[in-house]
């Protein structure tokens, strides 16, 4: 009897930090935000229950436009991260020797030692009018005057891809490492060419890793704030910026809360569609890697 009590106590103690984290930092703030977002301001300091804050979003096309733009660029970033990350992961998992494997993984990890902010400033140093790339182009005579590479969508995409790359490489590498080399050889042996083997064997095998990498990267990108603001400028029109504006600039917390929920719902929807299209589920992808 005593033994069982001790076991139960251990379980409770182990579970407590997790429960506290879920309740205090995830559940409570979201309930608070939910309640906040459903308050309609009818007069100064007078609030009523209603969906007006959400309806605002649909009434004003600019919000809808910013959200779809955010989602669109996030999808592009996710796709680019996948295209660049897949060969890198394949090389680390299957081609590199056991010693260089660790070193290569380390190289992917090193940028994470520097904060987001510093990394974004690094890009600014490279891309701004008086920056390195503009300077080199002028020096080689390809352009006659300084070129501004910052404050456009391309700069935002480049910066975001760089920021999230590791989160694509890690799940992909771990999935590909589990693949038996003989499977690829069998693919060739049975008559497949390189493309067939990639399409019919390697990619289907790596699908759980691909999907989990894409979910993580998409969520991180759509929810990022610093990189789009620094590299895209004030008018980069990222949805998180709109939320920030509502909370801080306009001091309209009700509307900001509603927008926050809309971002959550919208990105979840995109992830859900992605899972349906790839025929995967959360338990076979994110939960596994």
């Amino acid at each position: 009897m005593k033994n069982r009590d001790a076991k139960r106590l251990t379980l409770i103690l182990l579970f407590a930090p997790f429960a506290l984290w879920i309740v205090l930092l995830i559940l409570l703030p979201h309930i608070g935000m939910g309640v906040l977002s459903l308050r309609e301001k009818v007069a100064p300091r007078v609030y009523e229950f209603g969906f007006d804050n959400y309806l605002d979003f649909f009434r004003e096309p600019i919000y809808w436009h910013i959200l779809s733009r955010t989602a669109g660029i996030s999808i592009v970033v996710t796709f680019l991260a996948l295209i660049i990350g897949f060969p890198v992961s394949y090389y680390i998992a299957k081609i590199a020797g056991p010693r260089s494997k660790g070193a290569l993984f380390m190289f992917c990890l090193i940028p994470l030692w520097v904060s987001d902010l510093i990394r974004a400033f690094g890009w600014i140093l490279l891309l701004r009018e008086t920056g390195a790339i503009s300077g080199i182009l002028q020096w080689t005579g390809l352009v006659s005057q300084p070129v501004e590479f910052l404050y456009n969508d391309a700069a935002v995409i480049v910066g975001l891809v760089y920021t999230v790359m590791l989160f694509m490489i890690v799940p992909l590498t771990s999935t590909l490492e589990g693949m038996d080399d003989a499977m690829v050889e069998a693919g060739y042996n049975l008559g497949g060419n390189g493309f067939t083997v990639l399409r019919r064997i390697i990619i289907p095998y790596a699908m759980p890793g691909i999907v989990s990498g894409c979910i993580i990267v998409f969520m991180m990108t759509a929810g990022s704030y610093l990189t789009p603001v620094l590299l895209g400028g004030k008018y980069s029109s990222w949805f998180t910026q709109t939320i920030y504006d509502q909370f801080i600039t306009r001091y309209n917390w009700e509307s900001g809360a509603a927008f926050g929920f809309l971002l959550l719902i919208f990105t979840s929807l995109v992830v859900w569609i992605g899972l349906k299209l790839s025929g995967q589920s959360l338990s076979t992808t994110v939960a596994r890697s």
Partner: protein
Amino acid sequence: MNDTASADNDLECSGVCKNFGSVQAVKDISFEIPSGTFFSILGPSGCGKTTLMRMIAGFEDPDAGDILIKGRSVLKVRPNRRNVKMVFQHLALFPMMDVFDNIAYGLRCIGTDRDEVKRKVQDVLDRVALPDVGSREIHQLSGGQKQRIAIARCMVLDPDVLLLDEPLGALDLKLREAMKIELKLLQHQFDTTFVYITHDQSEALVMSDRVAVMNSGSFEQIGNPQELYHRPKTAFVAGFVGDANRWSGKVDQSDGGELVIETEAGMAVQCRAGANASISAGQKVEVFVRPEFIKLNRSAPTTSKASSLTGTVDNLLFNGANSRALVRLGSGDLVEVDVTLTGGTEDVAPGEIVGLTWSPENAVCFAQVSG
């Protein structure tokens, strides 16, 4: 090796060599396999047999020599264009496809149309006696079924040669015994050349028409199982294929075909020299005698022609029909002898003094390799 002779051979290797750095994995191997043969390559792990197979499949390029399939050199042919299919050690079935798609994969690669794919897959499933598993997932199959699907996946493409890389290694003993017979029957049914790689001598002996014994990169002997077992050409073959008592000693007398050897412990053994070996008096040799050729006499031996020795039964190793007695001779040597243990009171018992005889025909000796 002219072209007319090689046309009947499904697979032919001539002077194939492969080095990994300073290690010679395969040293100048030549052989030919006539159509429809079950050919085994038998050797201990690390002898280079897998490298040889990978060269035939095209995953490694030989440093020297030529590989011919149906009389044509395939050195310049990429793995996916060679009509040599391979059953991998761990089968390498594709877990993300069901059985049907696994088998259909190869057909789709060569652009077979849909109805034809369906017909051929069903046909091959019938032939491996698994007609209803097409829609199953790979993880739902048993070990033996996976084995047959892996073979079906290759056979559906009608290969010139099927390579099998120790595919029975992962199975438990009972299933392995059953699969041995089944593989032999499948080979007979498909009438395709099988090249089977194994380190298990019983697999090689039971299934094969011809066996090549491989040791440290080269073939020691090629022959049918009976030849290898009864007429080994080298000491390695005599020791590796089947069980044998092995003594090292010195030649005492050499007269014509028969020799008398004195072992290190001082026992005198009559034997014959192994094939194409010339052995002279005073030379260091190794003698091999198989346990089943030694006769155990419970009364004192009388024949003078045969080798005969006296010893005490030290231990009995009961293993059903393959039971053995360990007999310690006066000289201190231990001899393994096959005995029949019926479980009755007549059986040999430890401590009994027995005589051992065998005909010199069945004792083979080879010159000892120095080192």
